[in-house]
């Protein structure tokens, strides 16, 4: 197991099972370990001293042309030199990052993708990757074997996929899921939730599971890149869909995940939508115990864009910090610190919310776009109710 000491104990990445665990100081000591200086001179208490997970844009090149691409990737997009990416991986190793998620752009367009995955592994970092699945040849499947998991973007069958992305890439995505699963590569799907894809979610996940997917990752649609337009307001979930989300998620968990062959994940931006769940509201600590992460931008999560700059997350504007300087710059960068600090003293209604320590105010990319401020998530049901008054 890989241990990274924190002021409160340690983050531990297990190797015999895919899990990251937070253990307090007493627990760490019971394992015969001691945090030393990290426990005596460490920074003020916070969940992580450096990112646990970094999202690395290995290219901004992509021919798919998805209408809502958060990176605004294009066929002639920039492709960072391998040495720059390896310098960022060096910094991640030195910071104690556990996982690097390769994205872009379409990562499989890089001929050296497998070498980059091996470069991550040789530094003790688990590599994972997202692909559209378009043009996934046998040779490209081979390049993906080095990854712990490959997620294919799959928002639904043809008509639904086309409504989300502007073209019908579903047949190619389905072939890719099947091909990867047949090749023995652990494969999951990324499903973007829009008001069109949401009603067909059960059907989409069932189809993905039948093709061999082991995991469904639900993603909130976010107003970044090409999606930062008025069309966002027509694509985002309706208020009724948001309020039905927790019950729907429970139903999907019970109907698809019994037996353990398929798992369901939600992204950080969907966490505020759980605030209307009555059972979780009675026991909000359950979210933390099961390791749910809300907005960890600039904290447990960081991104490195295709120009090599660090951003709080993939949807946020990049800072001046270079990926290769992640160790020396993570604590001191003012913009990363601003994102981390928001949840320490949020305004109402987040201040009195029992989900606050996990949710951390929801998606700031959404609040910046919709409200023009770095503030509470305007699509959180609790925020909506608070703003509409008694």
């Amino acid at each position, binding site marked *: 197991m890989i241990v990274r000491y924190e002021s409160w104990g340690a983050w531990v990445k297990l190797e015999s099972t895919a899990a*990251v665990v937070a253990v307090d100081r007493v627990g760490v000591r019971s394992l015969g370990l001691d945090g030393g200086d990290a426990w005596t001179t460490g920074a003020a208490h916070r969940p992580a001293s450096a990112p646990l*997970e970094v999202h690395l844009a290995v290219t901004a090149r992509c021919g798919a042309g998805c209408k809502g691409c958060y990176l605004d990737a294009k066929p002639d997009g920039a492709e960072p030199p391998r040495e720059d990416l390896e310098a960022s991986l060096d910094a991640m190793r030195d910071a104690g990052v556990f996982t690097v998620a390769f994205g872009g752009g379409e990562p499989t367009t890089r001929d050296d993708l497998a070498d980059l995955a091996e470069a991550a592994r040789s530094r003790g970092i688990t590599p994972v990757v997202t692909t559209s699945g378009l043009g996934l040849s046998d040779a490209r499947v081979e390049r993906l074997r080095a990854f712990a998991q490959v997620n294919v973007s799959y928002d639904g069958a043809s008509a639904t996929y086309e409504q989300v992305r502007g073209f019908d890439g579903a047949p190619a995505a389905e072939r890719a899921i099947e091909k990867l699963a047949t090749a023995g590569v652990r494969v999951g799907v990324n499903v973007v939730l829009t008001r069109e894809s949401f009603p067909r979610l059960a059907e989409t996940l069932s189809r993905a599971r039948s093709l061999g997917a082991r995991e469904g990752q639900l993603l909130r649609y976010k107003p970044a890149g090409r999606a930062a337009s008025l069309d966002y307001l027509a694509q985002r979930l309706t208020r009724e869909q948001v309020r039905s989300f927790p019950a729907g998620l429970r139903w999907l968990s019970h109907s698809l995940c019994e037996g353990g062959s398929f798992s369901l994940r939600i992204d950080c931006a969907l966490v505020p939508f759980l605030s209307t769940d009555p059972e979780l509201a009675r026991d909000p600590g359950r979210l933390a115990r099961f390791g749910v992460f809300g907005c960890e931008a600039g904290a447990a999560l960081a991104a490195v864009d295709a120009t090599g700059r660090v951003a709080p997350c993939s949807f946020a504007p990049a800072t001046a910090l270079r990926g290769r300087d992640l160790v020396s710059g993570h604590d001191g960068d003012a913009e990363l610190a601003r994102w981390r600090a928001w949840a320490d003293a949020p305004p109402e209604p987040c201040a009195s919310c029992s989900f606050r320590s996990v949710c951390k105010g929801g998606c700031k990319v959404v609040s910046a776009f919709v409200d023009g401020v770095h503030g509470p998530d305007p699509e959180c049901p609790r925020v909506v109710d608070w703003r509409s008054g008694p």
Partner: protein
Amino acid sequence: MSQDRAVDAEGSLEEHVERVRLGHGANCSSVGSVVDTLFATAVVGAAVLAAIVAALEREEVRVVGRPEEQPKDRESSP
């Protein structure tokens, strides 16, 4: 490692596991969290935690992170 080492005056190791994040995830744009265990029964949750504790007690240790803050690896058994 013996079970004895995981138990001290302040309770079992299970009580000192604060968070469990399962799975790798492979999304490149936002951080994901497994939720089916969140909604599972207490029996399933307990089984997951027991497996995690067993792995913590069994696996070899490698320490990573900022060198100036990182001390030695696992000490010999007390």
